[in-house]
C-alpha cells in the first residue's frame, strides 16, 4: 500500500514514537476456592504515537502472548468491556492514553496492569461480573403506558440521560468499599444499580414504587457517600450527588419523616 508522507516528524517525535514500554501484567486463574493464583509477567513492546493501554495489551497478544485474556469491544469508551486496574487505578483501558500513564509511572518502573480486584477472576485481566447480570434481573422494569401519547420536556429528559449514559463498565462497583472491602454482594446493589434505580424512580412514564426495595433489599444505607464511585466513572456521571443521595432522601421521606408518614396515611401524598 502506498503511504503519502505529508510531514517529516521532528526528532522529539521520532524518539517518542520509538519508545519501548514495559508492562507488568497479571497472568493467572482462580484456584478451586476462587482465590486468584498467578504472577505478574513483564512484557516489553515498542510504542506508536497516541497509543492507549488497550493498544499495548493487543500488541503484547500479537507479539508475545496470544493467550493473554482481556475483554474489549468498541475501543471507544462506549461499551464498558475493558475495565481493569492500571497502576492501581480502575479505568477503561481503551480510554487511557499511554502519554498520561507514562507521566504517572516512575522512571524505570513498569506499568502495572491487573484485573478488577473486587470481582472474582476468570483469567488474566478478565473478571467474572455475572453478579451484575443476576442483580439486574431483580429490579422490576419500567411499566410504560399502553397509549402512546406521552409528552415530556427536555429538562425532564436531561437528568435521566445523565444516568442513561452508564456503560455498565462496573468500575464504580469495583471501587466501592462496600464491595471491595466488605464483600456485601448480597446486601447492597452497588453504585451502578443505584444509578439504574434512580433512573426508574425519576422516569416520567414510570409508576412503580421501588423505594422499599432500595432501602431493604438493595441496602442503600451501607453507602456512606465517600464518592469513590463518582471519581472513577468514565461516563462522568455524578453518581453520588445525582443518583444515590436523592434515593437516600426518598427513603428518609418514605420511612423516617413523621410528617410524610402521616401525610401518606391520610392519603395526602
Amino acid at each position, binding site marked *: 500500500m502506498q503511504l503519502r508522507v505529508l510531514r517529516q516528524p521532528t526528532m522529539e517525535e521520532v524518539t517518542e514514537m520509538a519508545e519501548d514500554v514495559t508492562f507488568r501484567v497479571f497472568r493467572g486463574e482462580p484456584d478451586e476456592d476462587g482465590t486468584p493464583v498467578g504472577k505478574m509477567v513483564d512484557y516489553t513492546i515498542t510504542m506508536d504515537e497516541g497509543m492507549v493501554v488497550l493498544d499495548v495489551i493487543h500488541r503484547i497478544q500479537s507479539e508475545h502472548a496470544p493467550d493473554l485474556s482481556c*475483554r474489549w469491544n468498541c475501543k471507544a469508551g462506549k461499551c464498558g468491556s475493558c475495565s481493569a486496574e492500571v497502576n492501581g487505578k480502575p479505568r477503561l483501558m481503551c480510554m487511557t492514553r499511554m502519554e498520561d500513564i507514562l507521566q504517572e509511572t516512575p522512571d524505570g518502573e513498569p506499568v502495572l496492569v491487573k484485573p478488577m480486584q473486587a470481582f472474582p477472576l476468570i483469567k488474566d485481566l*478478565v473478571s467474572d461480573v455475572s453478579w451484575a447480570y443476576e442483580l439486574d434481573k431483580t429490579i422490576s422494569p419500567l411499566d410504560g403506558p399502553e397509549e402512546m401519547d406521552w409528552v415530556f420536556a427536555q429538562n425532564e429528559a436531561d437528568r435521566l440521560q445523565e444516568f442513561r449514559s452508564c456503560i455498565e463498565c462496573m468500575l464504580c462497583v469495583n471501587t466501592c468499599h462496600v464491595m471491595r472491602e466488605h464483600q456485601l454482594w448480597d446486601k447492597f446493589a452497588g453504585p451502578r444499580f443505584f444509578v439504574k434505580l434512580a433512573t426508574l424512580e425519576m422516569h416520567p412514564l414510570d409508576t412503580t414504587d421501588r423505594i422499599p426495595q432500595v432501602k431493604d433489599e438493595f441496602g442503600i444505607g451501607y453507602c456512606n457517600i465517600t464518592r469513590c464511585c463518582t471519581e472513577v466513572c468514565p461516563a462522568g456521571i455524578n453518581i453520588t450527588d445525582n443518583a444515590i443521595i436523592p434515593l437516600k432522601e426518598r427513603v428518609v421521606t418514605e420511612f423516617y419523616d413523621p410528617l410524610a408518614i402521616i401525610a401518606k396515611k391520610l392519603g395526602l401524598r
Partner: protein
Amino acid sequence: MSDVKTHRYDVVVIGAGGAGLRAAIEATRAGASVAVICKSMLGKAHTVMAEGGAAAALANKDPRDSWQTHFRDTMKGGKYLNDWRMAEIHARESPDRIRELEQWGAIFDRTPDGLTSQRNFGGHTYPRLAHIGDATGLELIRTLQERGVHSGMEVFMEYTVRRLFTTDGRISGCFAYNRADGSLHVFEAKTIILATGGITRCWAVCSGSWEYTGEGHALAYWVGAEMGDMEFVQFHPTGMIWPPSVKGILVTEGVRGEGGFLTNNEGERFMFNYVPEMYADEFADTEAEALAWVDEIIEGKLATKRRPPELLTRDVVAKAINSEREAGRASEHGGVYLDISWRDEEQVKKKLPGMYHQFKELAAVDITKEPMEVGPTAHYVMGGVKVDPETQESTVAGLYAAGEAATGLHGANRLGGNSLSDLLTFGKRAGDNAASGSAACDDWLVINQGEIDEVIAETLVPLSREGGENPAKVVEDLREMMQEKVGIIRSAKLLQEALEDLDALANRETTTSPGGTRIYNPGWHQALEIGAMIDISRMCAIAALAREESRGAHTREDFPTPDKGHWSKVNSIISQRPDGEMEIRHETYPPISSELRALLDSSDLSDDEQSDATEGATTTDDGGSD
C-alpha cells in the same frame, strides 16, 4: 465427546445486538422458549457503538415527512437495488418501533413540544433521526436489554456459534463453544435467527468491534443459504484518522447534521464540487445557501433552503474525500477537515457529547475550538443473507436473519439512521415469524452426530498445533490486503489479486498455533475466526469482480460510471455449490407495484424499468457468473 452439553429451545437467536434482542423479545412474547447466544457480554454488542440515531418518519420536527418520503429516500440512497418491499415495510413500521422503545424506557432527546426530537442526516429529506445526543445505540441496546431480561429469554454470554445444522434440509440446531471456559455446546432448535451483525473487521481501517468478523454471514453460507449484494460494503466518510491507534473509530454523521462542514487543506468546502446529477435539485450550490439552511435548522424552523452538500449520501461523501486525497489536497495526516467549531460551544457539547470526549481524550483535539481530521472507514455491509421480505426467513427452511446480517433493505448504499430502524423493524418480524415457524414444528429434528463430531474436532484442533504462526498475524495480513485490494476503489486486477491472496491466507489459516488452554484464550478464538473472515472476504471480492459498473458503495476504477441497463436491475447472489465451490449469479427483485413506483423520482429510472414494472415477471440472469 464427553463434555458436550445439549440444550433445547424453540427458537435460538444468535447475536444480542439490537436485532437479536428485538427478535428475542418478540419470540418470547409469542410464547416460544428462546435462547440468545452472544459472543460478548449482554449489552456490549456492536449496536452500542451506533451514534447518530434511528430513522423513522415520526414527522415531529417537520410535518411534511411521511413513510412515503422515507421509502423514496431509502430507495434513492440505495440506487434502486433495494428490495422495495422491505423498504416499504421499514418506512411504514419504524415509527411504531421507535415509540415502543420509549414505552419501554428509552429517553430520546425532546422537541420543544415534548415529543421525540429528530435530526438531519445524509440522504434523508427531512429531520428524521430519533436520537440521544450522539449515543443512540447505547440507549437502544440498554432499553432492549432491560426489556429482554424480563421477557424470559435465556442468555448464553460469551459463546461463539461455529456451525448451523440442517436435517433433511431444515434447520435443526447449532454448535457453540463457551469463550470463557472452553466448554462445548449443542443447541437443538426448531428455528434459528441470525442477528450477528456485520463483517467490517475484514478491513484494516474499520469502525467495527472485534465481533465484526462475519461469522454469521459465513454460518448461513456454509449451511446453504443464499447471500446477496456482497459487493456493497459501506465506507463511512468520517472516521478518526489520527493518532494511528484510533484510526477508523467512527465520527457520527450527526456532526454534519448539526452543521459541520468539510474542507480540504486549501480551506475549500469541496463537497460543492461533488453533487451527483440525481441529487442536484436538492442540495445547495453556494455556501450562503448551505449556511442559511443550517441557520433555519438551528432556529427550529422548517427548512426552506436546500441542504448543504455535506449531507449527501455516504457513498458520495466517502468517494469525494478519497478524490481530494488523490488530488493532493489532504489534511495533515491524510484525511480532510470536519469543522463544527463555528457553532456555540455549549450546543456542540450538548448535541455531540461523545464526539467532544472522544476527540478530547483520544486525539487531544477540542472540537468546539478546532476542526477534526477525518477519513473513510469500513462501516457496514449492505450485503448478507437473502430473506423473504415479509418473514425474514432465508432460503434455508427455519433459518431467519435480521439487521446487518440480512440483505435487501439498503440496496447499494445504506442511509445513515436506517440501520437502527432496520434492526428494530425486521428484528421484530424475524422474532414473530421464527416463533410461529417453531410452533408449526411438532418436534425437534435429530442432528447428525457425525456433523457434531466434525465441528468439535475442527474447533479444538488449533490448540494442538505447535510451532505455527500467531493467528493475529494472519488476521492482520488479511485486513491489510482487503483494505488495499477490495477497498473504496476497486479494479479487476486488484480483485483478482485479492482472490489469489485469499487462497494463500486460507493455507496459512490451517497452520496457526495460538498456544494456551481452552480457558478464555483470545489466540484460540482468533484462530477460529479466520475461516469465516476468508470466506466473507472472498464473497466480497467475487461479487465486486462480477459487477462491472460503479454504483453506490461499489466503485470500479475500470468501470467508473453506473450502468443504466443490465447492472441497474440485478442483484448478486452467492451460494455454495455441492462440491464446496463458491458460485455467483444475478437476479432481479419482483416488479414494484405502480403505487410505490409513483413515489420514486421518475428521472432516476430508465425507460425499460417502466416496462419491467408492467411485465410482472421475475427475470433471472446468468451474466457475470464467472
